[in-house]
């Protein structure tokens, strides 16, 4: 007898847990592969899934097995030319012992390859932005279009049928019935007692007319009591739920990129990579974060995402123009009391002669007091210039909200990015 069962609708992810266990165990390897991948990829497909390879020796499960050497005999199929007594030179490498006992040889053979597998885009991004956060995200505010959650708020007389509170409804119906029929019941009881008294009298003394009348009264009282409805409209009670807005943190990130003529193609590319990472990170981990893109050469301009990453406009350099624009936007659109404000600036450090001191002044006086965090990356393989020196001073004064890092080549971007936004232990 056979039973045939269709199991196709059962879950097909029986191995999910085991897969997760594996990823968990080899976290470090995967993180390294992810960080390598971030560096090597072109900007447009930076957020795809990734092929991870781990050296086999790191994930091998050791067992006792025979090593090479000793006396091995083996039987092989497909003899073409040998007769017994033939001598064959040992194959080069010799590790497998001429395919002798099979198992030992293949164990070592497999050891050469890396273990390769695929992680999804989702997992890739998870690993990419693991342990990162926006620092000092503290202001929580009720803003205009909040999310709400429902909260119980007692009992009400109105509501939808789905929300009827049965116990309370029946209780109030009961109370109403008692209240409406109390007097009548008392009267009824009295009449009944009187009637019983009359009935108990000697038949000669019975007043039949009176009895008749009392019976009529009793019947009409009973009728009136019965006419009180068991459940009335206004007995119904409903559970009341009220909407309550959830306060949430609003954040805005200002991305300031230098596109002046001194920034060559490579430096611009690196700056863009940095901002792409930042942008992906914000999109993924902070749903309600706004991003303001500012490009600047001699003058600054607020642009959209497309233009920020792909426009080719260029010119001289006045860094302070961007900071001024940032201040302007900040003052008009993002009140400090409501918004968590962040800034990230990328430049090659080249600036108009005395503009650097203006920059640090704007930062220290106008911006930093309002900001949660400001990071500056300088993309240059050369010596630092005036802007870096000025910013050093800023850092000395505003150490906890200001960070600066230097990027020399592409492989620095991801580590620097992690450094800047690393989750700080509380």
């Amino acid at each position, binding site marked *: *007898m*056979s*039973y*045939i069962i*269709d*199991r*196709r609708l*059962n879950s*097909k*992810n*029986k*191995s999910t*847990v*085991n*897969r997760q*266990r*594996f990823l*968990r165990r080899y976290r470090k390897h995967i993180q390294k592969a992810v960080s390598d991948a971030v560096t090597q990829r072109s900007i447009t497909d930076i957020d795809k899934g990734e092929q991870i390879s781990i050296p086999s020796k790191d994930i*091998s*499960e*050791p*067992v*006792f*097995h*025979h*090593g*090479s*050497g*000793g*006396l*091995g*005999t*083996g*039987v*092989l*199929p*497909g*003899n*073409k030319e*040998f*007769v*017994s*007594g*033939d*001598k*064959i*030179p*040992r194959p080069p490498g010799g590790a497998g*012992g*001429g395919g*002798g*006992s*099979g*198992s030992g040889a*293949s*164990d*070592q053979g497999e050891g050469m390859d890396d*273990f390769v*597998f*695929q992680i999804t885009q989702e997992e890739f991004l998870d690993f990419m932005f693991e342990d990162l956060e926006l620092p000092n995200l503290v202001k929580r505010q009720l803003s205009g279009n909040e999310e709400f959650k429902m909260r119980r708020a007692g009992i009400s007389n109105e509501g939808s049928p789905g929300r009827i509170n049965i116990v309370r409804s029946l209780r109030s119906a009961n109370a109403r019935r008692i209240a409406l029929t109390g007097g009548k019941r008392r009267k009824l009881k009295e009449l009944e007692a009187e009637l019983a008294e009359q009935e108990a009298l000697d038949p000669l003394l019975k007043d039949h007319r009176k009895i008749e009348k009392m019976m009529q009264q009793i019947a009409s009282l009973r009728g009136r009591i019965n006419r009180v409805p068991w459940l009335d409209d206004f007995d119904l009670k409903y559970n009341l739920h009220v909407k309550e807005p959830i306060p949430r943190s609003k954040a805005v990130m200002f991305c300031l990129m230098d596109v002046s003529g001194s920034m060559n193609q490579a430096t611009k590319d690196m700056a863009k990579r940095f901002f792409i990472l930042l942008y992906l990170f914000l999109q993924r981990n902070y749903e309600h974060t706004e991003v303001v893109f500012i490009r600047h050469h001699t003058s600054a301009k607020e642009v959209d995402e497309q233009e920020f990453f792909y426009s080719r406009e260029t010119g001289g350099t006045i860094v302070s123009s961007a900071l001024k624009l940032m201040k302007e936007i900040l003052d008009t659109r993002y009140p400090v009391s409501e918004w968590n404000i962040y800034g990230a600036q990328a430049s090659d450090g080249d600036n108009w002669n005395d503009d650097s001191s203006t920059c640090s002044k704007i930062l220290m006086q106008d911006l930093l007091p309002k900001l949660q965090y400001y990071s500056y990356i300088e993309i240059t393989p050369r010596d630092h210039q005036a802007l870096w020196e000025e910013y050093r001073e800023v850092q000395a004064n505003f150490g906890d909200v200001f960070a600066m890092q230097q990027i020399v080549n592409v492989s620095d971007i991801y580590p620097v990015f992690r450094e800047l936004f690393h989750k700080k232990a509380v």
Partner: protein
Amino acid sequence: MSNPDDAPQNESVESPLRSNPISETSEWSFELIEEYDRAIAEIAKGYKLDTYPNQIEVISSEQMMDAYASVGMPLGYHHWSYGKQFLNIEQSYNRGQMGLAYEIVINSNPCIAYLMEENTMTMQALVIAHACYGHNSFFKGNYLFRAWTDADSIIDYLLFAKNYIAECESRYGIDEVESLIDSCHALMNYGVDRYKRPYPISAEEERQRQKEREEYLQKQVNDLWRTIPTAEEDKAEAEKIHFPPEPEENLLYFIEKNAPLLEPWQREVVRIVRKIAQYFYPQRQTQVMNEGWATFWHYTLLNTMYDRGLVTEGFILEFLQSHTSVIYQPPYDSPYYSGINPYTLGFSMMCDLRRICENPTDEDRHWFPDIAGSDWLETLHFAMQNFKDESFILQFLSPKVMRDLKLFCIVDDDQKREIEVSAIHDEMGYQKVREALAGQYNLGNREPNIQVHKVDIRGDRSLTLQHIQYNRKPLGKSTEEVLKHVHRLWGFDVHLHSVQDDTVSASYHCPPQPETSTEDLEVALPVIGWGI
């Protein structure tokens, strides 16, 4: 083009043989599977195949990958190594480097077999014949399975194991449990009793007795490790105690019962891994026979169907095509060569057994006087029931099969400069090739023989293992790594001596020791001999 309604009529007129095929297209449906199964069952009954009831499950390819990754267990505890397996399979499947398993069948009662939904009707019938009647009857009939595994309770037990380990994880943390299982897996091949029949495992009993066992076990362990001296003269006595009195081959069993520091739940986990290893032990010893038997029967059953006109010519051609690719044996010098194909060897031997019974030659009469000319069905059943790979080959590998497969035997002696061809498929070589091939399927030769030799119960509590070399073969590179796992389980120093002809040729220690002094070896020597 042609009207599909015409086809069956035409064919039935044409040939009375194929008067009544069950189906004509390659599409399957549940009704068809049922019908094929019924037909195959009936034929199988005619061949006296005795099976457990079948539970045929239709699954998708993703589910097949899952089943594959959990090494054929329908439910298993969670462990990263199964995840690794899964990722590996997923990767090679997605890149088209590998087709999915032909079939997976589970030795349980009822016997569970999986059919993949994208297969054609022919393939489904092939898998039904192969798994549900071939493997199934082997599981039920072979002496190893009868003696060592309990098909009725395995599913229950696996469920118990899964739940128990999940509970341990929530109580003691995933990492803790994971590293324990790592260590147990490293010794899994040394967690089987080779000679004594284990208790049948049953989940119900496990649950009931587990608590009891925990306490009892711990008490025993405590007794063993009691260090308070009872009297002065005991000390001299104690030094003479050799524990264990007999060497123990089941390392996991020994650890479960005697490791000083394991918590009760850890002993239970060791036991679970050990029990599962035991369950798979017969399968590892009967690969050639099991696959050969199943392949022989799918071949015989489906051909019988064809003879009775139950399947079409298209069906049988599709079947033969995949059958031949399954039993293809690449020669030793082919890039596709990866050892002897158990399907080929098993199938050739089974077919040849039938031939020897039905059409014996003089050679057969000389080599197999007992069975030449006997009833083939009886002989085949006898062979299936009473042998394992090693003894099966030793008993039944015929000169014809050796000639067909062109088997030859090489001797690779590291003390000589060249590899020698010691025997080929000729009159002088048959016996030798046969013996060498049988030896190749002896698990005892394939795996290093390592046993618990001694525990220093009154001293530093160190555990000494002994490897008795087979043909001077040394231990492989991962030995140190495995010892670390033994050390984790045992909790104190672990030593492993590799012994050849009563001399220690290599020693491994965990934690590593700088250099073993010769003094130690001399002390160890006198007691080493009796381990063999």
